[in-house]
């Protein structure tokens, strides 16, 4: 079996809808403003709520980078892991939690929400996301999809056209 860390993950429409439903419920129950599920490489999978006034692609890269950095700090301290990362601002706060070794769940909230409640609900949601992640891992739609669509060849042509001196 291939190393799953080298295997392309394919999120189907049904799975994305399930993730969005979980996020929506979490935001409602926790009175949080914005939630996102992203791959540990920083790529966004799903977002819900009031979108922050910033570039979401950059937000994803920063959250993933910060979380990965915190995990190295944990190792340096001989701590098994930091499962949850909390960043406290004057008005907005961020909680990020790991979904197995693959995804991150990040929640942005303000004074309307209780930190403890957000933490508990984020943990519960992360556990539910594990089930969806396992479904995503179990199907091999990627290869069929790519073979059928001949995406690879088309992308290579586009790379040749766009990645050159202007």
């Amino acid at each position, binding site marked *: 079996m291939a*190393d799953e*860390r*080298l*295997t*392309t*993950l*394919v*999120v*189907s*429409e049904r*799975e*994305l*809808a399930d993730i969005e439903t979980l996020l929506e419920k979490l935001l409602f129950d926790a009175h949080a403003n914005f939630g996102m599920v992203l*791959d*540990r*490489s*920083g*790529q966004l*999978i799903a977002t819900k709520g009031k979108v922050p006034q910033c*570039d979401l*692609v*950059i937000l994803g*890269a*920063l959250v*993933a*980078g910060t979380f*990965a*950095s915190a*995990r*190295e*700090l944990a*190792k*340096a301290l001989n701590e098994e892991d930091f499962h949850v990362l909390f960043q406290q601002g004057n008005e907005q706060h961020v909680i990020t939690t790991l979904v197995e070794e693959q995804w991150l769940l990040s929640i942005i909230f303000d004074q309307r929400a209780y930190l403890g409640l957000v933490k508990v609900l984020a943990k519960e949601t992360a556990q539910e996301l594990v089930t969806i992640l396992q479904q995503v891992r179990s199907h091999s*739609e*990627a290869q069929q*999809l*790519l073979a059928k*669509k*001949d*995406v*690879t060849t*088309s*992308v*290579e042509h*586009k*790379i*040749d056209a*766009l*990645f*050159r*001196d*202007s």
Partner: protein
Amino acid sequence: MALINVASREIHCKIVYYGPGFCGKTTNIEYIHSQAPKEVKGELLSIATETERTIFFDFLPLDLGTVAGFRTRFHLYTVPGQIIYEKTRVAVLNGSDGIVFVADSNRSRLQDNVASIKELQRVVSAQGRQLADLPLVIQYNKRDLPSALPIPVLNAMINPLKRSHFEAVAVKGQGVFDTLRAISKEVISKL
């Protein structure tokens, strides 16, 4: 590890520029940002010290637009090159789909290059992967220096896996897009 989002019809891939300090990783990204078509490039994010040395990473999202029904995005990252930031490099390498190793051709930097590629092998192994299995392209930068080592010497010391290599003068843009095209295609072919 690439991500395909069927619902939003998107493909995401992460490419990391790795190499010793001052080898030109950030220069590569800055050149790409300056030359890539407006509709392709996103905002360039640099997390640097006051002296403009990379302390965490540089980040440049590239959006190829819709290809065969899928919106294809490449996220380019650099790592900080200074020796003390090894753990930060480990963090940035997380989840990468492909690596560009940027080597400094200057004769005096040979040992730094060798140390850096050995560290890369070690870090990738620690993440449960093997460098031989990963898309990897070598860029020999600063080819315009009088003290630049011959390519066969560099290949013998830095490129034992015999991966594709490109000569570059990143500050002038030479070889920058050749390198990017090569690693992008390798990553896509491994999807």
